[in-house]
């Protein structure tokens, strides 16, 4: 089930537990990297592979929940919290802020492994979505300013002549721009282009006028 291209980060100030978790993951054939503090983890050079973070709530330098808050701005692997005494407010806060799971020590082997597997799979998914979006953004950057004006009008469902009138250009010229946009964005059809525009969050600036029909 697990492929080799993943890693489990462990942040816990307790050395024996850090060691034991690493051993357990090794016994499961998983790659792990352990850190004694949040600072060590943030500073570390981390491989760009699907991952998850097992984070002790009670850390010496920073509370695990606060660390979660700090990392919320950037891309980070799913977090599985481990705590000595799981109180409800802490767990609710953690889950609300996107924690993958919240487990109390000592935790069951099966629970921990299930949480880790789910978190890594989730990260893998997120990462591939992020990669696709990165490619689309790359393509979007190749569009000329005029083509970037044409794109929202086209995906809004305006007829060619309507879009041309909107931009004050001829219908023929518009058709040329439209073809270039389709090619540059690698869209197989208008429907595909609409989906891509949605992923890129290109705003739909015009609703289709009543009585009009799609191109």
């Amino acid at each position, binding site marked *: 089930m697990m492929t080799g291209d993943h890693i489990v980060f462990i942040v816990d100030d*307790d050395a*024996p*537990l850090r*060691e*034991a*978790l690493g*051993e*357990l993951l*090794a*016994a*499961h054939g998983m790659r792990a990297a352990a850190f004694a503090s949040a600072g060590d983890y943030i500073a570390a050079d981390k491989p760009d592979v699907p991952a998850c973070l097992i984070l002790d709530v*009670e850390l010496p330098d920073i509370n695990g929940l606060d660390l979660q808050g700090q990392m919320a701005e950037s891309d980070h692997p799913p977090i599985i919290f*481990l705590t*000595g*005494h799981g109180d409800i407010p802490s767990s609710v806060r953690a889950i609300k802020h996107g924690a993958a799971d919240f487990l109390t*020590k*000592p*935790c*069951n*082997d099966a629970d*921990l492994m299930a949480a880790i597997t789910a978190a890594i799979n989730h990260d893998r998914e997120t990462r591939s979505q992020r990669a696709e979006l990165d490619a689309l953004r790359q393509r979007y950057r190749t569009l000329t300013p005029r083509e970037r004006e044409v794109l929202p009008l086209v995906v809004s469902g305006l007829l060619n002549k309507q879009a041309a009138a909107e931009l004050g250009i001829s219908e023929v010229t518009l058709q040329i721009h439209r073809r270039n946009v389709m090619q540059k964005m690698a869209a197989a059809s208008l429907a595909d282009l609409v989906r891509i525009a949605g992923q890129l969050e290109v705003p739909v600036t015009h609703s289709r006028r009543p009585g009009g029909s799609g191109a």
Partner: protein
Amino acid sequence: MTAVSNPLDETDCEAARALRIIESMPGFAWSADVAGQFTYVSPNTLAFLGNARDDLNTSGGEDEFGWRRFVHPDDYDRVAARWRHCLETGDHYDTEHRLRRADGVYRWFRNSGRPSRDGEGRITQWYGTTIDIEDQKQAEAALRDRERELSQLVDMVPSHLWRLTPEGRPIFFNRRMVEFLGMDVTDIDRPGMSRLEALVDTVVHPDDARAMKDALGRSLATGAHFAMRYRLRRADGVYHWMSSRAEPLRDHAGRIVQWYGLCHDIDDQMRAEEGLRDSERMLRQLVETLPALIYCAAPDGKPIYRSQQLREFLGFGLDEKDEAGRPRLASTLDAVIHPDDLAAVQERYGHSLATGEPYALKHRLRRFDGVYRWVETRAASMRNAEGAIVQWTGVCLDIDGEVRARQELQLAQQRLARASQAAGLAELSASIAHEVNQPLAAIVANSHACHRWLSAEPANIERAKLTAERIIRDANSAADVVSRIRALFRQSTEARTVTPFGGVIAETRELLADEVAQRRIRMDIDVAADLPPVMVDRVQIQQVLINLIRNGMEAMDGLATERVLRLRVRRADDTVRTEISDRGPGVDLPEKMFEAFFTTKEHGMGMGLAICRSIVESHDGRLWAERNDPCGATFIFTLPVRAGAAA
């Protein structure tokens, strides 16, 4: 001349009869010649004087007429002169004088003589009678004496007496009144007004004149008794307060004959009264305006006075709560004291009444609107010269604001203390949990890893051995944690000092005093006087005491009956034995209670008793619980007398 003859003829018979009449009349009869010599003297005269008739005419020398020796020396000259005058002029002779009786006693007589004249008017003979008027004279003298006495009395009484005609015209002032006013009745008259008007105008204080005239006029018109106080001007112009009264004297037909008045100088009295009234008014104002509720009670506690503020506060008067057959004090207390405070008030007040000791208590008092307010009542006894209590005086200060503020403060403190206590226990347990959980978590993880290495195909024995070793290591460290926690409560032996245990109890009691009062608990503390000192960590033992006492108080929280917490400290062999007994629901599992996290309470981590036991055991003592008969629990701990020396 002689009255003796032989009455043989008719004329003689007439004469004899006339003589008999004369001589049988009361009084003495006599006749005399123009020279004043007696020609006849009735026999009873001679009998009275005890002398012969001829002796009466034996004149000569100083005795002009011959009867000088029979007339009182004080009267003689006057009588002789008169007689001489009458003999010379023929005027009627009328005198009153004393005659000496045969036994030497003088008696008053009225002597009357008339001349008898012939055809030419010449006096031929004097005829007269002498009548005994001694009794009449004495009566007159007595009357005069009495009159004089009365008159003196009227003048001497230290009051003004006056008399008015039925119309109100003053006709008499006694001497004192004349002296006081500096004028007599007749000096008052002024033209154009009645004497009464003139009197009032002249001597009655202008502020009182109108009322005095009205009142007196009313009395004169109706005959009703007159009485009033007014100021009267003395001769020197100084006004004096007078108490004046007048009554009419009526004749048999009920008509008013006179008005008699008595006027008494009450100036000193008025001034004294005024002074008294002033000081009384000031005192009353003081009492009424003091920002306090004031009352007085009889020696038996019966309320006899309440200041206006107290009356307004309570909303009822002194006797409005009286019930037949019940002392006013009891019914009043029932009506005004908060039911929860009633027993204490009754006890303390009763004690003060019985012993005379001052009374002071804070309690709630029912206001007229039914709201109970906290007051501080203080009362003290007032004693007479013999030391007997004559009255109780009390003052009630409204301290509701302060008490409530303090209660709120106490509540806040308590909440804070609880919060910090709870936080302390929560922290402690969290730290214990953390300390124990870390090695446990490692053990569990290593166990799974070990299991997995052994289950692999082929089994990774090396890695399994490594993890097993780690398991042993982590398990030992978990055991160390437990030992460390236990050691937490053993470590402070250095803080132990030889301490008088009674002092520790007193301090603890002090610390909990407010809480005890707040929870309405009666502490029944019985500490033996001969306790030996113990070697303890004062703070830790206080913690144990506070924990156990609070435990007992909390156990009685829901109790409707009296909440009594008994604290008893005794020496028992080589230990000091402390027992804390409550009347709560008691304990079902006396031993289990001392396990950490065992709790019958709604709140709390249940660490208290476990820690208490740790502390006591660290002092080489014992702590256990027993059931009380019929209800409640007793927590007992012992501390060795030589705990320090033995350690």
